[in-house]
């Protein structure tokens, strides 16, 4: 079964629990094994179901979409939101969740 990684650059630090690595204050990295045919949306929904912090900050389960404050990229490329959700995950794929950020 495909193994994919999900990175949260959203200041969750160690909030995701023992399975997640936290290489910095900003990043948390999860390695996840998924069923064949799993889409990015299905995976994000699963992570939100398993972890209240993801449900609270990243993926809105009722609306089945990311919160407006975050964006996600797939394999280091920015893609349309719809394309991201529908992407069927393959071994080695990488989803990175990033905060929308302003600055001046």
């Amino acid at each position, binding site marked *: 079964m495909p193994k994919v990684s999900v990175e949260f650059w959203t200041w969750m630090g160690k909030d995701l629990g023992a399975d997640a690595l936290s290489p910095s204050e*900003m990043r948390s990295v999860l390695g996840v094994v998924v069923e064949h045919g799993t889409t990015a949306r299905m995976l994000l929904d699963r992570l939100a179901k398993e972890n209240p912090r993801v449900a609270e900050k990243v993926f809105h389960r009722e609306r089945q979409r990311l919160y407006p*404050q975050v964006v996600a990229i797939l394999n280091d*490329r920015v893609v349309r939101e719809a394309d991201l959700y529908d992407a069927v995950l393959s071994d080695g794929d990488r989803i990175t969740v990033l905060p929308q*950020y302003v*600055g*001046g």
Partner: protein
Amino acid sequence: MNRPRGYAGNILRVDLSSGRRWGEDLDERMVKKWVGGVGVGAAYLYDEVSPGVEWSDPENRLIWTTGPLAGSGVFGASTFNVVTKGPMTNLAGSSQANGFFGAYLKSAGFDGIVFQGTSPTPVYLLVRDGAAEIRDARHLVWRDVFDVEDLLRRELGVKEREVSIYAIGPAGEHRVRYSAIVGDGGHLAAHNGVGAVMGSKNLKAVVAYKGTDTFGIYDPEALRKANRELYEVARTWGPPFQKWGTAGGFSAIYGVGALPVRNLTTNLYPNHERMNGQFIRTHFKVKPKPCHKCPVSHVVQVTVTEGPYCGFVGEEPEYESLAAWGPVIGNDEVGATVMLTREADRLGMDCNEASWTIGWAIECFEKGVFTTRETDGIELRWGNVEGVRELLNRIARREGYLGDLLADGVMRASRRVGGEAADWAVYAQKGVTPRGHDHRGRWCELFDTCVTNTSTIESTFGGLKPELVDLPPVTDPFSHDEVSTLNAKFNGIRQFDDCLGICRLASPDPKLILKCLNAVTGWDWMLKDAFTVGRRVVNQLRVFNFRHGMKAQDERPSKRYGSVPIDGPTQGRDIMEKWAWMLENYYRLMGWDPKTGKPLPQTLKELGLAELIRDL
């Protein structure tokens, strides 16, 4: 006159040529139409600066305005706005600074100051208890802005927070086209060379004493309640500015391909995690330096604790300064960004324009267009931060070939040098550079920067947040259709913000801001009213710009700015593929002629600007 609730009700006029000062009523009719800030500034600019007046002419106006929320108790609300005809575009410019000045000026009895004329000798203005005095500033000439603040505080015998001081540095005095007005220890109004206009008027500084006026707030209890809600939203909704500053977004911006690296020659910057706000705040010594009544307090002073700049003390670089003095110039030593931020602020320069200009000069040196002959001995390589420090000082004094060339900004410098190097410069064709992002990864801001009437992003801020004003969210940030459509639909709310005297970082929710405004003024405004005022500002400035020589064909990026990224998260994305279509779509949705971009008569009538129709 019955002054409007929430206002001092008085605009200070200062004629620097004659030394005359007088007050003018700011009445209910005026504030209902223009609110304050950029709105009042746009009204004065349009009425008083005729076509043919150049940015450095005494007839140009330099208009500093606060808004109804400045000093009202809304947290962090102490912003003032500067409107003028600026030297980068020779068109309208609007820029804001925070700190304390907006609240102090209002509490001293004035909603704004309109400067006109040119003083025969260098002067500064002192405002206290409803009166203003012009004082000799010859002893402050060529002083940097931090020296000016220190000297004036000593001279006046005041403590740090008794007065707010904004000044220009040597850059403004030498008419460097991207000079800023800097104050309160490192806050800047920086766009479109507002500091150069101040320099052209021989005005070195403005001092506002903290006063006692409380502006007759309509419903203090409702204001307290709305303010509490606002704080809760600011604290929880968006990025944690309190914890990491604006530089906390550095890596996130890199992740979406919007970090500007080496004058846009690449999008790869592997050391970003040693340069971001998280790194700074977990490695350097930090001391909070909040703006007026701001519990978010994202501004801090830092002491560098490691690396070659260990021991250096300066304001923590905001995101834009960090981008400017980090990736844009090919530097990945974070302590050096603290040093260069302080240097540019001290000299009184906009970090964005300065770094895009220097980034281009470095590329020219690396590719052999410039040699040590043009640079007077500086090995101007990527990441040579001491070379950049020296160059900043030369630019501020227009010293040598390169100092003088670069003092006019990258568009003019690159056109003067010509050849292939002209294609490497990053700018919008009206004459300004982008904010501190690679907008090829943030199309909404690239488009906004090119079509703006304020000289910097006008519709957007940190991208688009359409859901905040009940518009559909962005689904594809690289759709020509969606970007041009949403930019048009969203346009207005950000200019309305700039009418109020608030800080956007502390006030992310427009509906709560309206609650605060209604509590302060006793009005009953809704989002549609806010949009109407914001669009009125946009259209007023646009008609001003057309009258002052703006051409619709200049609403496009330079070759490099509009180029296709060759690597990174947005590799291969091409905004220029449908640029003409985007413009037409945007113009049409803004109620402008789809070919010429000029506001249609019906649009102006609907916005209460019918009197402008004859001027087009």
